[in-house]
């Protein structure tokens, strides 16, 4: 695979994921506004310089009875009047799809500077109704309709499949949860930064940590989150001028070095049937990881300094560990036991806290992951900085391993 044309990530901004915007009585456009204006301020870019905008959002129609979220970009600033916009949806991978679209347009020389904003306001409804909405990321009629909290159950089945093929222990899932919460405490934007959590709690099975889907307990789950994240991505021409303007060398600006994007059949049981003869349980996810690395000219995960992965549940991160080939298939537990994935390990996973620790505003997650990669590579991640990070990779997954997107961000 040939290396891809250069697309620079100049910077961005995320909202504090601990906020409850329904309690603040706000419309989601306020969230988009804070994220985009924050990104502009962070990068010293004027609103009038943005040429195109892409919004990632999963289910505004359900949570806020509002579609057409691309158009809401114009409500942020009068300077945006007339610019082309679009909204992108691929369940929990919506944010990454929006970034892929923006990057493709820059690669095609259509525009020099694009804004990508991911947004989801989820606390407009209670947990039961929200769980039902999330069920539309699966095949609703067949996998979610009438089922309480369908997604924990689907990702519980992912754990069951590991159990069947290789064996899996609750202790390792609890360790994944503990690490993500601990990392989240270092991230000033993490939703759970003040929450009570420790390994013993993640292993506890009483009323405070009940099962909500087979082997999935409360502490194994990512959060219901209100939040937005925005990125400014640019062509080499714009990046050169910008680098001069802000006084940094062009080579120091993180870029999208590689990307991967695959889709698997939507029903979880079809995915599992398809992978019966594969050593990977979700082989399309494996392809996404490797194609991003190949495009980046990186041989394997040994060339990746940290990972921001899609830990919608502890089982999804468990899956990510062997799908990144940090261990042989089925041996993810080794990387957990050896401290590989902890902050300070050889390949830290989710220094930000990930979806479990930092939060999971569905349409914003893919954008937030790339923003965190940018912070790692630029050395601005503060207390959750991975020292010397040069190449950091994301894995963002929509549905039960259905749409997978990965970016390698590096200098």
């Amino acid at each position, binding site marked *: 695979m040939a290396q891809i044309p250069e697309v620079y990530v100049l910077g961005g901004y995320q909202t504090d994921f601990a906020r409850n915007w329904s*309690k603040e*009585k706000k419309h989601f456009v306020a969230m988009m506004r804070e994220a985009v204006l924050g990104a502009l301020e962070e990068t010293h870019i004027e609103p009038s310089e943005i040429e195109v905008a892409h919004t990632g959002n999963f289910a505004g129609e359900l949570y806020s009875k509002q579609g057409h979220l691309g158009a809401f970009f114009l409500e942020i600033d009068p300077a945006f009047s007339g610019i082309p916009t679009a909204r992108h949806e691929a369940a929990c991978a919506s944010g990454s799809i929006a970034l892929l679209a923006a990057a493709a347009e820059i690669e095609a020389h259509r525009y020099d500077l694009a804004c990508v904003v991911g947004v989801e306001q989820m606390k407009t409804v209670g947990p039961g109704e929200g769980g039902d909405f999330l069920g539309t990321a699966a095949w609703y009629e067949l996998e979610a309709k009438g089922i309480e909290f369908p997604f924990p159950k689907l990702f519980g089945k992912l754990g069951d499949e590991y159990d069947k093929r290789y064996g899996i222990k609750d202790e390792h899932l609890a360790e994944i949860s503990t690490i993500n919460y601990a990392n989240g405490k270092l991230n000033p934007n993490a939703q759970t930064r003040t929450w009570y959590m420790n390994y013993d709690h993640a292993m506890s099975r009483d009323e405070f940590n009940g099962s909500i889907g087979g082997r999935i307990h409360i502490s194994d789950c990512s959060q219901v989150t209100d939040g937005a994240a925005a990125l400014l991505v640019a062509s080499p021409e714009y990046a050169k001028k910008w680098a001069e303007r802000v006084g940094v060398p062009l080579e120091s600006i993180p870029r999208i070095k590689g990307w991967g994007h695959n889709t698997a059949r939507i029903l979880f049981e079809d995915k599992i049937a398809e992978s019966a003869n594969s050593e990977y349980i979700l082989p399309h996810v494996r392809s996404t990881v490797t194609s991003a690395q190949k495009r980046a000219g990186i041989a394997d995960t040994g060339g990746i300094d940290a990972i921001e992965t899609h830990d919608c549940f502890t089982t999804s991160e468990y899956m990510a560990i062997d799908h990144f080939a940090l261990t042989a298939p089925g041996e993810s537990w080794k990387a957990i036991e050896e401290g590989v994935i902890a902050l300070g390990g050889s390949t830290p996973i989710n220094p930000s806290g990930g979806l479990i620790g930092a939060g999971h505003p569905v349409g914003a997650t893919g954008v937030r992951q790339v923003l965190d990669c940018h912070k790692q590579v630029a050395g601005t991640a503060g207390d959750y900085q991975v020292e010397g990070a040069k190449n950091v990779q994301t894995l963002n997954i929509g549905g039960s391993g259905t749409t997978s997107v990965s970016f390698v961000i590096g200098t």
Partner: protein
Amino acid sequence: MLSSTTAAASGKSSDLLSSRSIKHVVVLGANGAMGLGSGALFTTAVPRVTFLARTKEKADGGLAAAVKMVRSSTVGSRVDTGSYDDDFDRVVAEADLIFEAVTEQLDLKQQFFDRIDKVRRPDSIVATVTSGLSINQLAEGRSESFRKNFLGLHFFNPPNVIVGTELVAGKDTDPKLVDFIDAYCTRLLGRAMVRTADTAGFAGNRVGFKLLNECAILAEEHGPLLIDELVGPYTGRALTPLATVDLVGWDIHRAIVDNIYELAPDEAHETLKLPGYMADLMAKGVLGRKTGGGFFGKDDAGGQIVLDPKTQNYVAKASISRPDLSFIDEISNLHRVGRYVDGMRAFAEATGPYAAIAQKVIAGYISYSFNRVGEVTDDISGIDRIMGYGFNWAPPSVLVDTIGLKRTIQMIEKAGLAVPPALANAQEGTTFFDDPQVNVGKFFVAA
């Protein structure tokens, strides 16, 4: 000198953190809300926490409540319980940190400190969670090693949710200990620390209860419902002022404002005087939410009722008509879509008698805060931090930045107040709020 910066959170904190070790905390008054909440918080960083109360049963009750508060039974695996009679001398002698959270009475606290002084190790830390009693006064008569190792550590309730924390040194407190506790609480307990002087109400309650009491005074003429809407969420707070007083309790409110009124006469002295109608009603047993109602309550049928301070009777909320407050609706609509600057500029420019009341209270909050710099904190960022992280109110600097310097000065002048020099001498375009980790938009709640 005081320093309310986040220096302790930066690189040098690792040296500081290794300068002492806290392996065992004893909480006194562990059956009260502050004691058990703080105790639960300590279990996140400390392997052993002892809950002490008058009886072991009461301490066990505190532990059960702490488990419910943080929703984790694992608190229990790090906590042991006991009573003052049976266990005090032994566990206090073992403790690295003795955390006092008994009832807010000077003589009672002093009795406990006297007992602690007799049995504690000379190197152990003694902290009080007092929200306003003088640290120097509390330390009077104690041994030298006690005074050296004694400080105020004012968590806000509930401490597992509210991270803003005041750190108050006495005149004999070891400065190295103050630095250590600052770093420890920041790094290991996730606190947003603010160092304050040993002045009445410290920083947060001094500034916060001044506004609350001013609203209580204004309610006598205008009624609690109107005042709570005028100084409501759109002015930069989640909970309205008089509902806040009902929540914290009128007795606590009175203790705080009486203390400040007595010990810290300042330019806003009269706004810190408890209104007479509150004293009258307190004599009849009205203490706010804990007695079923204060400014707001419910009638026997469950209908919402509101106090009429003039008659000291309650009237149905539905019977109170809302005057024309369209300026609030307009600002709220701007906040709702994230146009906070437009919203707060409209606030400063709103006209009419009701807007004038709201502007006066907010102008008073800003000017009073800036006038306390040098007295309760070294700089405005200390007051900003405690109002943001402790009260969840828009910090004064956020209001100045959002409203704009010139408009803020005009608003303060229009309210008949003196413009603090820090504002009068600043250049237009100066940004006052300096904490990039705070989303300032969160303070401006739409109605």
